[in-house]
């Protein structure tokens, strides 16, 4: 018991003294996840909107693939990215394995389907409301797409936050493709896993607290957006 109390005390002091190792790990985590979520947003929102609005050939398969990807276990994504980036893999020449870039790639694959699926729902709901009016004004679904993305921006932002939550919480895939190398590819989740297995609880606890704070902040932000929308009658 006292061991845990001591670890907890050390964890708190690590956070408040802005321990450089801790800061580096948190910084890398945020960097990887933010990059991944930005890319996933750029890919996922138009993809979700297209599936919602357009009747293009291959729409069915795209939907199936998106749904399948959404349920993919992270370790499988990690394995695939590992195989592709490994020395003998198709992209081996770039030497990306065990770099932050590899981790970003893995997270993009994990997060894009989530953002796409949630965006699709948002855009479909909005289109149900707008379709007649916009068609009446002469807008094709393609033409209406930017309008719908614009008008659904708050709800889409909530989808992006959900993606960010998933990205920061992910362990398996980034562990495999990042390698959890000290000062290079060590992020919050992988460090926690490692430190706990070593029996060093202080750093793990400190990172756990930071990670928890991040997900609480995300949750609060999403709630705030929802409340403001409802207040303005935008529900």
């Amino acid at each position: 018991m006292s061991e845990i109390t001591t670890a907890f005390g050390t964890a708190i002091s690590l956070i408040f003294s802005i321990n450089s190792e801790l800061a580096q790990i948190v910084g890398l985590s945020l960097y990887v996840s933010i990059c991944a979520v930005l890319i996933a947003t750029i890919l996922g929102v138009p993809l979700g909107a297209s599936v919602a609005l357009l009747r293009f050939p291959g729409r069915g398969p795209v939907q199936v693939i998106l749904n399948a990807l959404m349920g993919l276990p992270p370790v499988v994504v990690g394995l695939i990215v590992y195989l592709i980036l490994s020395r003998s893999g198709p992209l081996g020449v770039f030497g990306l394995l065990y770099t932050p870039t590899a981790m970003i790639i893995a997270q993009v694959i994990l997060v894009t389907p989530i953002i796409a699926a949630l965006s699709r729902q948002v855009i479909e709901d909005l289109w149900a409301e707008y379709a007649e009016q916009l068609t009446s004004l002469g807008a094709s679904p393609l033409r209406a797409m930017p309008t719908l993305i614009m008008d659904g921006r708050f709800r889409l932002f909530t989808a992006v936050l959900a993606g960010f939550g998933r990205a920061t919480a992910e362990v398996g895939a980034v562990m495999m493709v990042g390698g959890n190398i000290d000062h290079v590819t060590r992020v919050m989740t992988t460090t926690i896993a490692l430190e706990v297995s070593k029996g060093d609880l202080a750093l793990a606890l400190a990172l756990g607290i930071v990670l928890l704070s991040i997900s609480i902040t995300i949750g609060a932000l999403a709630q705030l957006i929802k409340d403001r929308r409802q207040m303005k009658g935008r529900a």
Partner: protein
Amino acid sequence: MTKSPTAPASILPLYLDNVWFRGRGNIPLIKDFNLSLSAGTRTMVIGPNGAGKSILLRLCHGLLSPSEGQILWSGSKGRPKAQAMVFQRPVMLRRSARANIDYALSLHAVDKSKRGDIIEDVLTKTGLTRQADAPAHVLSFGEQQRLAIARAWALNPQIVFLDEPTASLDPSATYQIEELIQRLSDQGTKIVMTTHDLGQAKRLGDEVLFLHRGRLLEQAPVQQFFEQPENDLAQAFVKGELLWWKRGEGSRRDPKHVR
């Protein structure tokens, strides 16, 4: 051959030629419509709930396509742009009143430099200058309906379809909308609207289309229609007989033989 921009080629009359529309399960909802809608007059589409009034407007406007038959615009193939529709429930984008009109103009490829004046003009006409920069969805229902008319008006259409534009409005808001429709019409826009308010149909209408169960039972000048409708069912409807439809069945006159 130079066309004056103030007098573009007329897209009216609009002809419906043996038009049928079938809904889910192939159920006919519009049955064999033959009619022409000409410029200048105000056409009131009336009939009981479920008669097919809204579907008729959507067909004419081009939101639905006929299952059989043709809808033909004069001097224009396909769906011309010089038309607009005002729905029973106004649908506004999540942006200011002004931006909503601007958006419609941009879809109609109106030059950006010309939009400002057009927007001010229609906002003034509809009495919405004070609300111009408010988010459209916080406007009252009546204001939103006026904004919907302003948005339609901005497009300078030759014909406007209005689907129960004053349903669920209070008397003063109804009066404002009627006045706007009157002015829109005075400016030369063809009005086709549905209403359940027979007084309104008398006040605003030049001619009446009476629909019943997907059939056009009568098309007549408004005075003639209300004074001596040719059709039995129309007669009962005008008198406001609550069981008027039962009468139709009792006399074994299926509406489709009445024409």
